[in-house]
């Protein structure tokens, strides 16, 4: 008789208990372990901060509460711009850029995807554009647009405020990235969806608007909002062409008071600006997921 695999072994049943070392950090012991490790790690960091030889000097130079408050509110009489007001400039630049980037990025993505013969010169332009603006550092784009366009002395075009040039530069730079994100999102919609839309006699525009984009947006929201979080921070680049936003105000403060507490204030304000957006992104993803799972 051929060899058989015996599944009805008469041996003792196998043990299902985990090895003891794996049980060390479970249950109440686990809680204790997590408290102890938190205290050790955080305590260690704080100890380094307080006990290092230059600790006191750094605390004074970066975390002086009095100077932090002064940087936040500013002092016009003393020629000090307020970091707190400066961040408002960052916020409006971000909001304005965001809208234009979405419009412009979508247009570029659409041109790059379309197969219409009429658009072929634009397709080449869009590709070149994407390559150029993803390749040049944002700092340089801001500087080139900010100083260059003003230098052209083209009347109205050259007479805008630096903040306008900064917005144009950021829009140019980010639209190239956002276009690629949107393009990837559009390509992620399964071909069957496009066939189904076509078979209902929908035009290319309606297929894009009603079937492809709504599905693409879902996949694209996390990477897109990532780009926008990065954009929020990059509004600080406007400082190099003289826009008085948070970083510029903090630098002015640093130069006149020889103290960097303003930079920390600016950092905290940027954090206050970006964290809501990251939370909002997570919320959107969760809501979409729940809604579709609940089927309401």
């Amino acid at each position, binding site marked *: 008789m051929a060899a058989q695999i015996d599944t009805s072994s008469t041996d003792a049943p196998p043990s299902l208990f985990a090895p003891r070392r794996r049980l060390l950090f479970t249950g109440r012991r686990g809680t204790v372990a997590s408290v102890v490790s938190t205290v050790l790690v955080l305590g260690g960091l704080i100890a380094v901060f307080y006990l290092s030889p230059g600790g006191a000097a750094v605390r004074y130079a970066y975390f002086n509460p009095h100077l932090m408050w002064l940087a936040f509110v500013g002092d016009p009489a003393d020629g000090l711009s307020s970091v707190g007001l400066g961040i408002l400039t960052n916020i409006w630049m971000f909001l304005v850029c965001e809208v234009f980037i979405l419009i412009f990025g979508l247009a570029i993505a659409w041109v790059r995807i379309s197969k219409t013969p009429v658009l072929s010169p634009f397709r080449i332009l869009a590709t070149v554009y994407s390559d150029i603006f993803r390749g040049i550092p944002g700092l340089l784009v801001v500087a080139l647009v900010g100083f260059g366009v003003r230098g052209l002395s083209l009347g109205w075009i050259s007479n805008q405020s630096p903040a306008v040039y900064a917005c144009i530069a950021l829009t140019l730079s980010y639209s190239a990235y956002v276009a690629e994100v949107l393009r990837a999102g559009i390509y992620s919609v399964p071909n069957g*969806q496009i066939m*189904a839309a076509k*078979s*209902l*006699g*929908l035009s290319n525009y309606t297929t894009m608007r009603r079937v492809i984009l709504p*599905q693409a947006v879902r996949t694209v929201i996390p990477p897109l909002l990532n780009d926008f979080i990065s954009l929020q921070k990059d509004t600080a680049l406007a400082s190099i062409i003289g826009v008085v936003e948070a970083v510029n105000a903090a630098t002015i403060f640093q130069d006149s008071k020889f103290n960097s507490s303003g930079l920390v204030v600016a950092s905290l304000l940027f954090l206050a600006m970006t964290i809501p957006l990251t939370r909002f992104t997570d919320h959107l993803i969760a809501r979409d997921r729940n809604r*579709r799972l609940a*089927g*309401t």
Partner: protein
Amino acid sequence: MTGVTREVVLGLDSVVKRFGDVEVLKGVSLSLHRHEVVCLIGSSGSGKSTLLRCANLLETVDGGSITLFGQSLHDARIDPILVRRHIGIVFQSFNLFPHLTVIDNILLGPVHALKRNRNEVQAEAMALLERIGLADRAKEYPDRLSGGQQQRVAIVRSLAMQPSLLLLDEVTSALDPTLVGEVLDLLRDLAAQGTTMLIATHEMNFARDVAHQVVHLDGGVLVEQGPPAQIFENPQHESTRAFLSRSR
């Protein structure tokens, strides 16, 4: 066929389709008359799906011609979008729009392609859903429905366009055996009402019951065509006999 001559809805004349070097359709000719149900049978890869997609202009043909109501679809002045509004197609994989509710899936075509009044179409769509017993699921998203329910919604979505003919591409092949029946029952209803249909299927009993004509495709060639009694009881061609014995 009976002696009555009826209007030819869809006509295929020596249609050839190639994907690269592979010839998938090698000159297939076929006519579909008004109120006629034609079933395409044949093993996987015989060209059934490709034939349906060509008829709907989702694929372009490399030779021969296709006519719809006597008009050649290869005329440069033909608008493929208009053609597709008259030809419904249902796919093996349902392809419902996951971001739209059941009712919105059905309304999309009539409202956005035909520009019909939303409320008016909504009443029709609800009546269609009522008929397939899914009226109470109208506000749900497709992924909450079983495969059989999704496929029935997909069929209703096509019907809402009031097409002149319906193409069905192995619509039960992706379904659990227990769910096949409900979809085939809907198709039987449609056939009884005189819906013009071209059905690619592996369900031989269904084809025998419903079809006026059965067409056997093998390797991109139309091997044999005839009424179901002839094809199933007395196939003339060796390859049809072989295929049918494998399908039993």
